[in-house]
C-alpha cells in the first residue's frame, strides 16, 4: 500500500468506474424523460378521445337529480312502515344477493384451480420449453384480456340466461389474472430448493410439487382471497346481461323506472360487498401475518 504504482492503478480504476457509473445514470434519466413524455402524450390523447371538456362537468349535476329520485320517503313516525314499503321485495333481493355471492365463490374456485394448472408452464424459471411457455402465457393473456361482462354476454348466448354463464365468465377472467399473479410468485422463488430436488433425479412434476408448491402456496391463497373480493363485485354486474344474480334485478328496476327499488338494491349490494371485503381481508392478513412470524 502507498507505493506510487499502486496509487495510479487505483486512480485509473476509480476513473473507469466513474465513467461507467455516469453512463448508467445518463441512461436511466433518458429513460425517465422518455417515460414522462409517453405518459403525457397518452394522457392528452385519452382526454381528446374521451371528449373530456369543462362543459361536461357543468352538466354533471344531472346525476344528482337521478339520485334524488331514487331516495325513498321515510317519515320518522312511520319509519317501520316506510322501510317495509321500500324493501317490500327484500326476500327476493336477499336471495339474489346470496346467489351473487355463490356465483363469485364458484367462479373463484374454478378460476383458482385452472390458474394453478396453468401458472407453472407460464413461469419462465420453471418452463424451459419455449413453445409451452408461450402457449401458457398467451392463454392467460387472452382470458385476462376480455372483461367479464363481455364473456358473460357471449356465454348467455350459448348457455342461456341464468347463473351458469355468469360463473363461467368470471372464472375465465379469474384464470387469466390469477394465473399471471401466480406465475409471478413462481418466478420469485429461490432456485436452491429446485436444484436440490432436481439433483435427486426428480422429474418436472416432482420438482413443481415438492420444491415450488410448498414455497408459493400461502401466496396463492392470499391472492385467491383477494380475487374473491373482486369477483363478488364483478358478479353483481354480470346480471345486467342476464347472467344471474342481483344485477338482473337491478337492471330490471332501472329499466322499469322503479326508482326506489334501485336505491334499495344498491344499498344491499354495497352492504354485502363491504361485509365480504372485511372478512376476506381479515383472513388474508391472518395468513400473511402467520407466514411472516415463521
Amino acid at each position: 500500500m502507498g507505493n506510487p504504482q499502486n496509487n495510479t492503478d487505483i486512480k485509473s480504476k476509480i476513473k473507469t468506474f466513474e465513467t461507467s457509473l455516469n453512463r448508467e445514470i445518463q441512461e436511466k434519466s433518458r429513460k425517465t424523460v422518455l417515460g414522462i413524455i409517453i405518459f403525457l402524450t397518452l394522457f392528452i390523447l385519452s382526454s381528446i378521445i374521451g371528449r373530456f371538456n369543462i362543459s361536461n362537468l357543468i352538466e354533471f349535476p344531472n346525476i344528482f337529480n337521478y339520485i334524488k329520485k331514487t331516495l325513498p320517503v321515510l317519515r320518522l313516525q312511520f319509519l317501520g312502515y316506510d322501510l317495509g314499503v321500500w324493501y317490500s321485495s327484500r326476500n327476493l333481493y336477499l336471495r339474489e344477493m346470496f346467489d351473487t355471492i355463490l356465483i363469485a365463490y364458484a367462479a373463484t374456485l374454478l378460476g383458482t384451480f385452472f390458474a394453478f394448472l396453468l401458472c407453472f408452464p407460464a413461469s419462465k424459471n420453471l418452463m424451459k420449453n419455449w413453445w409451452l411457455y408461450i402457449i401458457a402465457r398467451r392463454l392467460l393473456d387472452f382470458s385476462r384480456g376480455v372483461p367479464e361482462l363481455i364473456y358473460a354476454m357471449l356465454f348467455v348466448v350459448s348457455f342461456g340466461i341464468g347463473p351458469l354463464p355468469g360463473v363461467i365468465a368470471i372464472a375465465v377472467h379469474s384464470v387469466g389474472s390469477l394465473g399471471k399473479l401466480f406465475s409471478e410468485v413462481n418466478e420469485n422463488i429461490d432456485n436452491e430448493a429446485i436444484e436440490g430436488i432436481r439433483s435427486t433425479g426428480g422429474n418436472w412434476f416432482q420438482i413443481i410439487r415438492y420444491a415450488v408448491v410448498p414455497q408459493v402456496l400461502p401466496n396463492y391463497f392470499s391472492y385467491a382471497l383477494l380475487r374473491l373480493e373482486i369477483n363478488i363485485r364483478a358478479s353483481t354486474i354480470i346480471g345486467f346481461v342476464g347472467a344471474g344474480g342481483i344485477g338482473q334485478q337491478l337492471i330490471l328496476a332501472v329499466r322499469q323506472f322503479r326508482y326506489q327499488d334501485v336505491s334499495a338494491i344498491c344499498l344491499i349490494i354495497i352492504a354485502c360487498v363491504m361485509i365480504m371485503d372485511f372478512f376476506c381481508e381479515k383472513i388474508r392478513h391472518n395468513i400473511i401475518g402467520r407466514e411472516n412470524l415463521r
Partner: protein
Amino acid sequence: MIQINNISKCFGNLNAVDDVSLIIPDGQMVGIIGSSGAGKSTLLRLINRLWDPTQGQIFYKGKEITQFKGRELLRWRTKAAMIFQQFNLVKRLNVFTNVLMGRLGYHKTLPSLFMMFTKEERALAIEKLDRVEITDQALKRCDQLSGGQQQRVAIARAMMQNPEIILADEPIASLDPRSAAKVMETLRDINRKEGITVIASLHHLASARMYCERIIGMANGKIVFDGKPSELTKEEVLKIYRVEDAEEELEHDIENVEMLKHQKQGRKVAVPG
C-alpha cells in the same frame, strides 16, 4: 469408474472448466481444492448433469452419461447424489419429507405427487436420519434447523437415493469446526462402509488432507495437481492457489496441515482448523 474426457464448460467466453480429463476409480474419496472461481462447483454439477458440458464426455461404467436423456438422465442424477454448500433443502417442508425426497427418482410420477411413500421407505428415512444423528428433529421444518443440522439432512437425503457416487460441493464451507468435522466424518464413514465414491470440493486444506485419499487441485478451470495428500507440498499449494508468496493466513493453514499430519499418526483429531 468415472472417466472424464476433455470436458469443458464455457460461460460466454469464460472457460469455467477447461479441457479437464480425469479418472476416478470406484470407492475413492477425492477432495477437490482450488481458489474461488477455479471451477470446482462447475465440475461437480457437470458430473451430476445439473449442467450440460459445452464439450467433452463423461463415462460411468462404460456408459456415456453425457448422452443420457429423459428417464435415463433422471436415473443418473439419482445415482450420483449431490450435496450443496447451501444445503438446497426445501425449507418449508419438514426434515422427514426432505429426506424422503431422495426417493423421488424411484417412483412413478402420479403416486409420488401425493406423498405416497412406502412403509419401508419411511423406515429407511428414519434409519438414515439416525445415522446422521438428527432423528429427534425429524418433524421440524428445515428452516428451524442450524446450518450443520441442515447439512446432515442433506446427507441423509443423498443417502436415501441409494447412490453409487456422492458429489459434495463445499459441504462444510458454512459450518463451524465441530459440525464440519462431523459432516466430514460421516462422509468418510459412508465411503468406507458402503464403498460409495465421494467427490468433495473443499476450501479447507486441512480437512482435504485429513479425510481424502486423493486430492485434485484446480486453477482457472484446469487440473494443476493430482495426487496423494502426502504429495501436496507447500510449493504445490502455492501453485494451486496461484500466489507467489505465502500470505500469512495461508502459511498458517499449511503449518496447521503439517501439524495435523503428525498428530494423525498418534491419535484421532476430531477438530480440524
